[in-house]
């Protein structure tokens, strides 16, 4: 097992320039394809937040405990979008690299890492608009912001795990892609993005079985409440990420040899 991992790591290392260039290609081609290019990534959540803000202001609803709704909403929708992209577009990573996989023998993990990098960069770009919103609503950064990279890293791990599992399955069973798309729609409402669900006690423990609930809660604790993220909400994400990566990677290693036949 260790030997296999070592061999794979070496091969990945050999192709790291390809990974770098593919990510750059993604941005370059996106930049040349549409007039606004990368700016769209920033505008898209803004459109949503503007719509939501108008509707919720009309309904007379604010964020919990007097927190400005845009700040509350943005701190939930950004990490959610990162996760949802992994869940939906992530299932297609091998299928969209079909032309390469059926012709060239390269480490196919790159398809996952490449896409995760692109999703992450999109997330960081979109976060720039959040910075603007934070300034508008006078939210000042604090020391707990140093937890942010760790939280983002955790989310990246979770995304990679999800992608290895779903994308590998989706090569052979295309229904998986459709399933996860529908799952994402349902999952959205079970995550505290628009509403902060007032759970307590045992129900709270069950609620935080949703790793995204814990992650969103973590972001909010840092950005809005000037607190450190807590294990009580994050435990599921902390456990699920390595397990998903393990399962996903083993599944991937077992099946990748048949990708070219199935695609």
């Amino acid at each position, binding site marked *: 097992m260790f030997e296999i991992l070592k061999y794979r790591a070496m091969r990945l290392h*050999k*192709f790291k*320039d*390809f990974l*770098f*260039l*593919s990510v750059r*290609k993604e941005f*370059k*081609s996106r930049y*040349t*394809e549409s007039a606004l290019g990368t700016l769209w990534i920033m505008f898209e959540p803004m459109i949503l937040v503007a719509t939501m803000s108008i509707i919720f202001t009309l309904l007379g609803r604010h964020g919990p405990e007097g927190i400005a709704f845009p700040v509350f909403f943005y701190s939930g929708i950004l990490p959610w979008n990162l996760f949802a992209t992994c869940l939906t577009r992530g299932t297609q990573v091998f299928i969209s690299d079909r*032309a*390469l*996989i*059926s*012709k*060239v*023998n*390269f480490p196919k993990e790159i398809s996952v890492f490449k896409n995760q990098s692109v999703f992450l960069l999109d997330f960081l770009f979109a976060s720039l608009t959040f910075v603007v919103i934070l300034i508008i609503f006078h939210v000042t950064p604090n020391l707990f912001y140093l937890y942010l990279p760790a939280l983002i890293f955790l989310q990246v791990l979770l995304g990679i795990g999800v992608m290895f599992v779903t994308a590998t*399955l989706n090569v*052979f*069973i295309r*229904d998986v892609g459709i399933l996860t798309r529908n799952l994402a729609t349902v999952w959205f409402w079970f995550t505290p993005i628009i509403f902060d669900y007032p759970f307590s006690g045992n129900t709270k423990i069950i609620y935080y079985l949703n790793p995204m609930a814990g992650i969103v809660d973590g972001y909010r604790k840092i950005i809005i409440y000037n607190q450190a993220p807590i294990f009580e909400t994050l435990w599921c994400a902390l456990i699920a990420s390595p397990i998903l990566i393990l399962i996903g990677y083993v599944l991937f290693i077992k*099946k990748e*040899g*048949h990708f*070219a*036949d*199935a695609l």
Partner: protein
Amino acid sequence: MLSSEEVVIHFENVSKSYVENAHFSFFRNAFSRLKSLQFFGDVVLKEHIVLKNVNFKVKKGERVGVLGRNGVGKSTMLKLINGISLPSRGKISVNGSTGGVLELGAGFNPELSGRDNIFLAGTLHGHKIHDLNKFVSQIIEMAELENFIDVPIKKYSSGMRARLGFAVSITASPDIVLLDEALAVGDASFKEKSLHLMHQYLANKTVVFVSHSEQQIRNICDRVLYLNQGVLVFDGPVEEGLQKYAEDTKQLSAKPKIELVEHGSRRQLNETPKVLVNAVRLFSKGRPAGATSFRCDERISLELLLDLVEGFGELIIKVRFLRAVVGQISQTLSESRLVISEAELSSNVGIQLDFGNETLIPSNYEVEVEVSRSKQPDSAMTSKVRVPYSLKGPRDPAKLVGIIPEIGTLRMGLSFKVHKSIKVTASPLS
């Protein structure tokens, strides 16, 4: 040298089959049951066998041709060697990096410039950006794209894209080169160049070459594997393998069908033949009929033996000279037409044409003879035979096959001298 004995590709009892729903079969079968509303009974798995118990070894530096009709598993074999696909049974060991023109242009992105694509495709083959920096100008020059290299390749013509892909592939330089038909790309002048480069490139490399073209296999390979319905039926010298392949192919196409049978063999026609080319043979002074190799300065005679049924009116004989170039459809060099009236001939005639090849360089050529009747020359009354021949020395400095300098000024020293009404007896020519 010991290293020349080194086995670089080893297939041991390799079988490859595709089984429908082979992976995650439980779920997939459940889904297909759901879809067809068939909840009981066994699900029959369809198995499609591509390769059966294939065994062979390729030593370092060998150039192996793979013959076989469409769909016998030739390309699958390349994919197995390349590691893109895995064998269902058996063991494959490959020692060295693999690659080739198999993936011409793979990894290209239409939105990016030619230069960016060079790096992208180069790194896809495991090269470092740092190393590619050294080769990039060489690639651009080779592809003749100096003026377009910073233009997105979606604006390229297909030829330009192919040239770029070719140049990148050649520069990628793996230990074992896998070729799937495509040997030369681009327009006529670039084809010359790419062939030239290809021959340089293939020198001292291990090559596995899939092709339907006997000429190409002859030019490149020193051994052939012949696959028939997934079974390796022949592994040995080129000529022997080609012969076996030709025999099998002939058997398959023996049914009356308008099809060209190469190499001067008799052509079968539909129903009652009005004109039939019985045989075409080449000879010269000092060489017997049926010779295929001549000197450039030699005058070659073409003997044409026809079977005729009366009432054909006039016979139109078209003689076409083609250059057989590796990796492409033969290119017509010159064409001549000759009309002979019925009165001048009687049935079962031989016609002799003389021609010279002074303007040609040593290479492989083909002469095609097409005979048709002037009245209603539909295809059933047209008979066509192609005979390959090669020219050797005295102009031999160009070691490369099939390269003709100054393609524009090429002329064929062809003059017909028809020896009409040669009665041919039952015995073979000459």
